[in-house]
């Protein structure tokens, strides 16, 4: 089983490396944006899927990351510096945004974060002196690595892929450490977790802050990819789109966002044939998907696997053991 998993991962990685060579510019662009959104969705998966704190602010964090990157790289600073600043900023703002989560949950929290997204949008749109206002910032440069310019779409794709792999690995590390268990404890039973010594306050804030930092990273990758940013790219709709990625893929599953982002980004491509009806079909598909697998694609998969497994030894161990009479 484990070997199978590793083999699968290697195959996927190989696929990702070969992919751009089989695609036209557009295909590579779509792949890059899949990687970028997956990073954002991964962050939300931490906040929502693992720690159970719903957030509709992920787009705003992407915005913070993207604007920091755009402003700094356009001023001639290196990309890496802008990433550090962008992610740091998101981390701090994420900490602050986490505070409401200490008091309220569920839809209330959703709406606080929604309000934050709206406020962030207003600032991006109205503070023209800083953000370029509604016109946004045009001409964000793509970084160069070791003197190699990444202006070319394929090169930038590989750059994104590299950052993406780093981000995924650290995410894997995080959720499999005791921290990951603490996040889940917060999700499952915060009061008990707290009485067991889990500092739920800190963990809640960190869940927001780390999730936000991933959002910032995603924004920092996006600005050079699109080479243009404007406030409309960071509205509530985008937050909902990231949320959809997490939920459709399977929230709380490590690979959920990868799958979800792939689906949300690729589906419109496959539905292009339907022309004017495609959004309709797209929406109908999402409704259908949620109805048949409410726990997301990976949730369905893991239930399927469990069903196949339990078919063989059709009962549980505890039913054989412990006869006392």
């Amino acid at each position: 089983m484990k070997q199978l998993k590793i083999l699968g991962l290697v195959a996927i990685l190989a696929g990702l490396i070969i992919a751009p060579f089989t695609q036209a510019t557009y295909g590579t662009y779509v792949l890059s944006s899949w990687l970028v959104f997956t990073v954002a969705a991964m962050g939300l998966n931490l906040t929502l899927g693992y720690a159970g704190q719903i957030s509709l602010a992920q787009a705003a964090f992407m915005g913070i990351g993207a604007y920091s990157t755009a402003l700094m790289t356009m001023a001639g600073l290196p990309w890496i510096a802008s990433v550090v600043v962008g992610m740091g900023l998101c981390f701090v703002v994420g900490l602050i945004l986490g505070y409401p989560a200490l008091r309220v949950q569920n839809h209330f929290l959703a709406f606080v974060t929604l309000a934050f997204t709206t406020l962030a949008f207003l600032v991006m749109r109205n503070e023209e002196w800083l953000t370029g206002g509604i016109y946004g910032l045009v001409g964000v440069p793509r970084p160069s690595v070791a003197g190699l310019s990444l202006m070319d779409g394929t090169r930038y794709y590989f750059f994104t892929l590299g950052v993406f792999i780093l981000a995924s690995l650290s995410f894997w590390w995080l959720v499999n450490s005791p921290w990951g268990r603490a996040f889940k404890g917060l999700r499952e039973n915060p009061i008990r977790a707290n009485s067991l010594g889990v500092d739920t306050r800190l963990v809640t804030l960190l869940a927001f802050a780390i999730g936000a930092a991933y959002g910032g990273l995603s924004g920092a990758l996006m600005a050079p990819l699109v080479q243009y940013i404007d406030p409309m790219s960071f509205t509530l709709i985008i937050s909902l789109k990231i949320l959809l990625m997490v939920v459709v893929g399977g929230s709380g599953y490590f690979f959920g966002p990868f799958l979800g982002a792939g689906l949300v980004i690729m589906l419109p491509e496959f539905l292009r044939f339907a022309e004017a009806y495609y959004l309709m079909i797209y929406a109908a598909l999402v409704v259908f998907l949620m109805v048949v697998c409410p726990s997301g694609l990976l949730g369905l998969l893991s239930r399927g696997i469990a069903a196949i497994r339990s078919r063989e030894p059709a009962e549980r161990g505890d039913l054989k053991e412990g006869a006392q009479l």
Partner: protein
Amino acid sequence: MSDFLQLIISGLSTGSIYALAAIGFTLLWQASQTINFAQGEFVMVPAFFILIGSRVLGLPFPIAIGFGLAVAVFTLGFVFKRLVIQPMLPHGHLPIVMATIALAILMRELVKEFYSAEAQTFPALFSEQTFDVFGAVISHQDIGNLAVSAVAIIALQLFLGRTRTGRSMQATAQNPGVAEILGVNVQRMVLYTFMINAALATLASVLISPIYLAKFSNGEPIGLVAFLAAIVGGFNQVRGALVGGLLIGVIDNLSAAYLSSEYRIAGPMILLIVIILLRPQGLLGTSEGRTV
């Protein structure tokens, strides 16, 4: 001064419409613990059912309203509950949130493709005649809207709190497992909830459309504001929706005029954050009680 009065009065009148859309939220929450992100579209669509009745089928307008109501209760109540909500109820909030967001898009697209992408005029129930009060203009429509939403809210409040069916609905929402073992027909209660919600949405649609015009894209702003109203007023109190709606209407107007029109939605949003942080249960709501 008359400006200020006008802002308040217009705010109240718009607020009463927000309230109508918001009751649906509080109802769904109290009677099935679901949140319908397509609520705005639920208010947008019945206007088109009515328009189909009157323009396509050629029914007289009052009968077209009845027709629209019936179609709305069937599709947005019965069909929606059976096909969308029922399979997802045991799986918590998230799938329902996502499905209703997608459903909102679906409804918008359906209206756009199969009726029209253009805004449509819609006949008003109340006359648009106006009169002056200390320099502020009030129309009959404003007063009518306020009265209708107040009546709807009181009626619903009484229904939920004073009748056995109403309490069975609440029990279903709060603890479906218990409701089931006590013999409450859980599925039917959820169905009632959604049918009543559809009827309320139709009512809101009839009142809103003459002013806002009927358009496929109207659902989004209406849904958002209704949600704000529900939270500000208190999710677990139907009458909270009225207070929340009115407050949001007024604050929105005041912040547009005195804060900055570019930041106008910041007003209600900040109000929302403040309320959630200081009084999470909403202005009229009651706290959910003991946790340990």
